[in-house]
């Protein structure tokens, strides 16, 4: 009896936690369909797409289209770089090499240095060197200090469980190193590579602290949102939130589907 009761209590706790995670996001999802006269909170004053339409009239809320485009481009670049470097580093780390430990420590350090310090440091470095900060150069680098460690750690975890016997078998059959990588290693780790890509993309797409001082004159989307929180007091903010959240959800769902397919 006691055990049964405890089990229900614990499952209830988990339910509450999930509600806590998703509840607020759902409220703004609903509120973004607020009617034209509606305010920032309940009750709903009718249902409309008014605020979504407002969002696309660029002058009203700043440069929404431009920052969205920049964020997407940047996220794609960061994703590509993260996947290539993590994959290469993952392969390299399977053999011991000089500096392996140092590189590993550096990776972990990069994760735990407060984000604003990275932002400030990169910004200053560009300042001292006399270069202009821009979203595709300095912000790109600053974001990699966040996405790469995640990618690397995932790849390490994957290769730790990777059985080298498969590769040896391929080599015994006369496969070149490229062939064994392309036809043996890659298919096995493909789902994890998609995972790394997902991390790279979404972490970059939502990143603001590291981008703040490194993006130069053109804002990325999260920076635009930060600007809006202080100046915009209409449900436009929620419409934007809904849109980016739905977009993230689509990307995540796509990646999960791809992982399932590749696991076959």
């Amino acid at each position, binding site marked *: 009896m006691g055990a049964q009761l405890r089990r229900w209590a*614990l499952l209830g706790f988990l339910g509450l936690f999930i509600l806590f995670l998703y509840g607020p*996001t759902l409220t703004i999802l609903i509120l973004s369909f607020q009617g034209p006269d509606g305010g920032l909170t309940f009750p709903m004053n009718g249902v409309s797409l008014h605020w979504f339409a407002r969002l696309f009239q660029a002058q009203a809320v700043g440069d929404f289209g431009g920052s969205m485009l920049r964020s997407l481009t940047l996220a794609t670049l960061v994703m590509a770089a993260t996947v290539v470097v993590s994959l290469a580093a993952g392969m390299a780390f399977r053999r011991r090499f000089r500096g392996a430990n140092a590189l590993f420590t550096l990776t972990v350090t990069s994760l735990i240095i407060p984000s604003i310090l990275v932002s400030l*440091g990169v910004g*200053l470095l560009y*300042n001292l060197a006399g270069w202009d900060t821009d979203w595709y150069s300095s912000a790109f680098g600053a974001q990699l200090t966040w996405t790469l460690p995640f990618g690397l750690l995932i790849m390490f975890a994957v290769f730790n469980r990777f059985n080298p016997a498969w590769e040896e078998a391929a080599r015994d059959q006369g496969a070149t190193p490229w062939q064994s990588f392309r036809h043996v290693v890659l298919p096995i780790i493909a789902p994890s590579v998609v995972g790394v890509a997902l991390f790279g993309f979404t*972490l970059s797409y939502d990143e*603001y602290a590291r981008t703040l001082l490194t993006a130069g004159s053109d804002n990325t989307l999260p920076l635009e949102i930060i600007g809006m929180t202080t100046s915009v007091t209409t449900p436009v903010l929620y419409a934007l939130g809904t849109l980016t959240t739905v977009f993230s959800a689509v990307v995540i769902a796509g990646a999960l589907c791809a992982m399932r397919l590749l696991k076959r």
Partner: protein
Amino acid sequence: MFLLLPMVALVVVSFFDYDSVQIIPGFVLTNYTDVLGSSVTWRTYLNTIRFTALVWAFTTVIGFAVAYILTFEIRSRTTQMVLFLVCTIPFLTSNMIRMISWIPFLGREGLLNTALLRTGLIHQPLEFLLFSDFAVVLAYVHLFTLFMVTPVFNTMMRIDRRLIEAAVDGGASWWQVLSQVIIPLSKPGLAIGSIFVVTLTMGDFVTVRLMSGGQSASVGLMISNQIALLQYPAACANAVVLLLVVLLMIAAILRIVDIRKEL
């Protein structure tokens, strides 16, 4: 490259002199004496550490509980993975948006106040809900608990179930199993999660600015304000101090728990 050079730049500039118009290369300690000599700095650090301690306590308890439930109470493997994904997906969506979404919930005319007023529990809307320390801590817990759940879940999944069966066979109660088998074996995961939570909270500035409505300060916010005033050397000196404090905290965590076997 993008990590080491910027950190070097940070340390170098922290020794530069500055006046109201420009930065003067040089070597002065005034930035540090200013930082360490000001009572505002000390108060801000204390405030930040208080936030960190609170957030750490909440995320540890909640994160551990969630990881425990996922690992030991959910029996089907598929349900387990689905629920784990459900708990991690918010990590991949925008933090900004997740913070903003508390506003309609906690505001003066927000859901919570309206509900409480209607049930007659309170007669005045609760003012402390939004733009307060309470809101800041709540937002932190909301954002960072996932960083605790994931590593602890990862560690717990590796606990050999036979150990637990052995304990139960030996007559241990549920509580004894939890406190003497599961908690000690989950320590590496708790340590990794703690490192994440501590560094994220110590370095944050956006959450504090947004959720406290400018009424509360944190070290990150102080640094970002100095940057806004173009006092780069002062900001750098502050940043170096913050970095040292964070590294000391991590060193303390690592002294207590050895996480190396986790990697």
